[in-house]
């Protein structure tokens, strides 16, 4: 029996030696393009990848590489940068991971922020994150959580509408789209009070400000499916792109989409162009336009899109489902032939530049 056990132990050792070998990711040392990947839900493998645009080196899991292999968490949703700090919103982990840049060392973890979504800041010491409340289909009014970025603590919370999403800051005010409603909550950053609520289209998800000082909101519309076969769409409110001036929020320019659901409203670094993904393609639209573009800018279905303010080159994230690693494409300024195509983690969805 001992001999048998010994043979087994040896056999197990031999088989254990077959584990795939990972060469450790290099710790990022220079300014980078940070690529956010959600990761597989429940696996805690959401990641921020650091891509060095000069050397083309990629650190797929920058947080793990810089922090002894610690996992960043479950569903990386957003990352903001203030000074030399990165603030990573990790949705299902309910936390904001604060890292130093460019080395991605952990500085602090701000925990207990349920369903944290997006980050914005109004100064070097003041940050805001949106946070959903309530369970799926029974959502409650959400919160904007106020962060002290000096102490990395929660100092206040502001009740807004349901499922607050990607907010923006303009002239001391926060514009918070409530994606399960049809409103934008306007918060005065000096008092942390909601000062007004602007009604836009159904399901606003992103809010951006342009160079003229207007606010644009991308509204996805609401879709209701038939409850019996063939489960077709039985009602839907149209998606729309909505513009208003902060001084006259009741005067809206509403540009409805004929069908489907656009997402990921972004701006060019000079804030004169808008970008969004719609119908499997990326569209570009001037902020002075009064009609939606009909011709795609890039015929790719991007799960994330951004223009690098350092060199105006273009990044598009391609998600290949929730079981395989996705990748991103890097285009020259103005579009054209792909410069780089790099594999990251499951569900790449956004870019941040430092």
């Amino acid at each position: 029996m001992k001999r048998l056990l010994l043979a087994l132990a040896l056999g197990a050792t031999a088989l254990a030696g077959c584990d795939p070998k990972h060469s450790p990711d290099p710790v990022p040392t220079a300014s980078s393009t940070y690529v956010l990947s959600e990761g597989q839900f429940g696996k805690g493998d959401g990641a921020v990848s650091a891509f060095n645009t000069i050397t083309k080196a990629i650190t797929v899991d920058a947080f793990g590489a810089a922090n002894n292999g610690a996992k960043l968490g479950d569903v990386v949703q957003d990352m903001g940068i203030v000074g030399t700090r990165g603030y990573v919103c990790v949705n299902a982990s309910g936390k904001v991971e604060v890292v130093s840049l460019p080395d991605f060392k952990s500085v602090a973890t701000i925990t207990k922020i349920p369903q944290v979504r997006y980050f914005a800041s109004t100064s070097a010491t003041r940050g805001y994150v949106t946070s959903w409340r309530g369970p799926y289909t029974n959502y409650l009014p959400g919160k904007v959580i106020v962060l002290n970025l000096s102490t990395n603590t929660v100092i206040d919370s502001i009740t807004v509408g349901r499922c607050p999403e990607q907010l923006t800051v303009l002239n001391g005010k926060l514009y918070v789209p409530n994606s399960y409603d049809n409103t934008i909550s306007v918060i005065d950053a000096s008092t942390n009070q909601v000062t007004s609520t602007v009604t836009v289209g159904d399901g606003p998800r992103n809010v951006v400000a342009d160079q003229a000082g207007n606010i644009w909101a991308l509204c996805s519309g609401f879709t209701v499916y038939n409850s019996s076969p063939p489960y077709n769409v039985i009602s839907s409110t149209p998606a729309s792109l909505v513009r208003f001036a902060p001084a006259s929020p009741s005067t809206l320019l509403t540009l409805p989409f004929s069908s489907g659901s656009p997402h990921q409203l972004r701006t060019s670094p000079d804030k004169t162009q808008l970008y969004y993904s719609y119908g499997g393609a990326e569209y570009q639209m001037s902020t002075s336009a009064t009609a939606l573009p009909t011709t795609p800018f890039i015929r790719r279905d991007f799960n994330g899109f951004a223009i690098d303010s350092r060199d105006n080159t273009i990044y598009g994230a391609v998600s290949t489902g929730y079981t395989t690693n996705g990748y991103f494409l890097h285009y020259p300024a103005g579009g054209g032939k792909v410069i780089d195509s790099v594999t990251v983690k499951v569900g790449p969805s956004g870019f941040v530049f430092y």
Partner: protein
Amino acid sequence: MVFSFFANALSRPAGGWLAGALAALLAASPAASAQTRPADTLTTRAHRLPEARVRAVRPERFAVGSQRVELDSAVLAQYRGGTAADVLGSRLGLYLKNYGPGQLATISLRGTSAQHTAVLWNGLNIALPTLGQNDLALLPISGNTQLAVQAGPAAALYGSGAVGGAILLRTEPDWRPGLRGSVQADAGSFGLRGGSLEARTASSTLAVRVAGSYRQAQNDYPYYLRQPTGLVRYTMQNAALRHQWSFSPDLAWRVGAAGELTAAVWLTDADREIQQGTSIAGSNAREIDQSRRLVLGYRRATTGGGQWAVRGAWFEDIINYSDQGAVSNSRVRTTQSQAEYTAPLGQRASLRVGAEAQHFAALVDGYGSEPITENRAAAFALLRYDPRPGLRLSANLRQAALPAGLAPLTPTVGLEWDVLRPASPPDSLAPAPGLTLKASAARTYRAPTLNERYWQPGGNPDLLAESGHGFEAGLRHRLGLASHVVLESELTAFTQLVDNWVQWLPLGPGGIYSPRNLRQVRSQGLEASTALRLRQGRYQAAARLAYALTQTQKTQGVAADTDPVGIQLAYVPLHRANITTDHQWRGWLASAAYTFTSYVYTDASGSDFLPSGGLLGATLGRTVALPGRTSLTLLVQSTNLLNRSYESYPTRPGPPRAFSVSLRLNYK
């Protein structure tokens, strides 16, 4: 989207007396280990054609050339506080995807998915109709007296889902006269408490058994996570098994000389906190799982040596899940009926023909407010032919009718040929060599589940049944090394293909996820086992070593299905090895099981993986005879005896070394 991710564990430090008892027992005898011999009932049982007595002719009789492992009640008794997950994973070394102790545990046989193993209870499929699979942690061992696993495609015998294989649970009447029974109490680490009882009695015409078990566990065990500051110790949260009941009365009644009426009931009820993974914050998910299963059967021998049997069954399966106000409830009622006739064809063959029907009525939150009903039916013919002693053949056929059309016709053929035949009765330990060649080929299918058809949004009522086929061939060898030692070995090579493999992809209206028949997956490998049995005086020992190589890859897909081809599927280990050993001497029992699993990928890209490693479990027992036909058994068991730190699923750290003590009072 299917709210049935359950999982958990069992342990809280037990009292000091327990540790003392444990130390005493461990000091008294070296820990040993045990495993049952592979039960190839067809080769080791005497050659017997359809029986004049009313004993059931089991479907395994028609499974010539297949690989089976069977655990008898003596082994199951060691696990009677546990579940099928404990026995199949720890004892048999089969690969389970396990979310934690007591939490969701599903099996992958021959590289297939959880929906590709049929689970039958007394001949009836008990897969949850919504999910088309079983959580093995919800099947307490106490509910049944026999457990067997048949590997490989076998839809002709076992119906939908027998693609990677089938798990066969059965309560067999015990016709030994008189009253016998036992009552057991269990306590263990991390808040494990439990108890069970079993009573059997039989007269010449009536056999009755009643069994019940209860278990609870806090599962608040420590684990370590790698944080930027280093390894940090945490305590597992929201993973308790609040309670798990099983109650299973059954009876067999001989009616006249040729008839037998059977009735069996199996009630299970579990209330679990659902551990959501260490990277998910704030969940307080909880799930109630209740199953009520009743089956009535009647069997009658005919004067011509044939036998007919009818069975009717009613099941109710309830899964109620909630997390922070999000609720998903489901209730499915299933009625099943089966009728079959088994006839001798001359002296050397028997033929069974039969039909079955299933009716499902589902009230599931995910399907909308209206109940859904579905009917399925199948007809089958099974032939066993032994043209001469030492040569066994079978040929089987099943055709199922499903709501979306006919399932693929699923034939099976099998062969066993005793190249060298033992001269002595095969069940003795006499030193007679034997060598058997075996081979089988089968087509198989899996019916779409109710979720796949009716879930909204996305359910696809037009989904086709998955189809598959497979071949296997191998050898069984039996060698008597001495008058009291026998060595039995088995080697099987298999290859099988699953086509129309269902995958949920964002192909529905508006890009919603919807299941489609998209994929082809091939699995091939080797399974080898060797078992040594020894009996000398009052000492009995057995040891079994098993190894499996399983290579499973997607071989075809469509563009929308982004999982790459040619990469080992996630959660299918390439190598598995398992060693078990059992020793009995006078009143002592010692048993151990070690299971090694090579790394498994955790994504389809083949980039992330869980590392390889092994788990050791052991049991030490002592039975003392007491007056009045009673005896007392003390069992001390340990899981993860080597205290390995591991995850059986990402972000689900397994429990450290844990102990339990059981005290059983037997009467016979």
